[in-house]
Structure formats: C-alpha cells, structure tokens
C-alpha cells in the first residue's frame, strides 16, 4: 500500500503496519488508521493518518520528560506535540497522552481528569550551557 504524505512524501507500507485507533482522536473521530513513523531524528515519532495522508501528529515519548509518567501494560505513552515557529515555544500535551501497543497495533488517547499534567507543557528549555557541554 502507498500513501502520499505531506511530511515524508510517498511512503509504502504493509497492512500489518497500520495502528488501529478505534475511537479516533478528539476532533478526528473518523480517522481510525495510522502509521507510526520514525525518522533519523531521535526525539520525534510521527503519527500519520492512512485515511487522510495530510493529517499528521508529532509525538514525543512521555517518559522522556517524566520517568514516572503513568504506564499502561504493553503500551508506550506519547504526548502530542504542537510545533511552533519559535522552537523554544514547542509544547507537548501530557494531559491527554496517546497510548500505543506496537505489538497489537492498537492505540487510543486517554484524557486525564485530574490536573497533574499540563495540556501545553513546554517541551524545551533553552540550553544555556550549549557550548560548554
């Protein structure tokens, strides 16, 4: 199968690579099939819709930010990232994580009712010691 994505151009994949989001994502309830794409970039994963190849969400592993982030067995937790023209203003949604089971190829977004995590947590801090280490 092939789709033409905005981010990665034409990509070829097998049916078994598709991750099923049975309930979609808030606002995108009709999009239920995604590919989880990794690039050479160490930090980001990209969740690209199969049904609408233009639709793509950058993800960052929630445990990269908080090693105590709530786990669900068999799943990896990701936060949806909102990129910004000013990279220092990039935010990540830790309040509504996307959980993906890469073996069963299923995923869902869970909204936390409590306020322990922010919906737009700053993903980066300026590295003032960039030159010294």
């Amino acid at each position, binding site marked *: 199968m092939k789709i033409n994505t905005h981010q990665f151009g034409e990509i070829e994949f097998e049916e078994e690579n598709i991750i099923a989001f049975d309930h979609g994502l808030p606002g995108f309830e009709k999009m239920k099939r995604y590919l989880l794409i990794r690039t050479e970039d160490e930090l980001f994963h990209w969740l690209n819709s199969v049904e609408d190849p233009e639709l793509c969400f950058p993800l960052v592993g929630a445990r990269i*930010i*908080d090693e105590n982030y709530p786990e669900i067995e068999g799943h990896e937790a990701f936060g949806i990232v909102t990129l910004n023209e000013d*990279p220092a203003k990039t935010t990540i*949604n830790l309040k509504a994580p996307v959980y993906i089971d890469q073996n069963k190829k299923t995923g869902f977004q869970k909204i936390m009712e409590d306020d322990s995590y922010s*919906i737009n947590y700053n993903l980066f*801090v300026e590295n003032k010691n960039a030159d010294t280490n």
Partner: protein
Amino acid sequence: MLILTRKIDEEIIIDSNIRIKILSSSDGQVKVGLTAPPEVEILRAEVYEKIKENTLMASVNSKNKLKGISVLKINKISK
C-alpha cells in the same frame, strides 16, 4: 435535546448501564453522581473541548519545519 426534570436523589438511566444521580443543588451549582462501566469515558465537556482544540492545533502546526531544536534541552520533570 431531551429535557427531564429530576428531584434530589432521583436518577436517570442511559442504555441500561449508565446511571446519573442528582445529589444536591445550591447557588447555581448542581452535584451529580455518575456510575458507568470502566470503558465509558466520562469528562467535563470543557476539558474535552480544550483537548480537541489542542489536537487540531498540533495537526496544523505539524507542517512546521523542525529547525533550531538541536540547541534546546528537554524540559524534564524531576520529582
């Protein structure tokens, strides 16, 4: 929209397994108790709307280029 009038301690049942009970009301605030199977997600509507807005924004901004990120440090939560 279906409109029902309920008194304190009266309930509404949806789909035979979701129960909504009116617990109290005062000063323009109504307290409700909800019982539902664990797979049913219960949310305050405004929380859901905020998440939806954020997800929409993330999809629009996903087309931005990842530039200048390498000089930044991950903002880790340390407890």
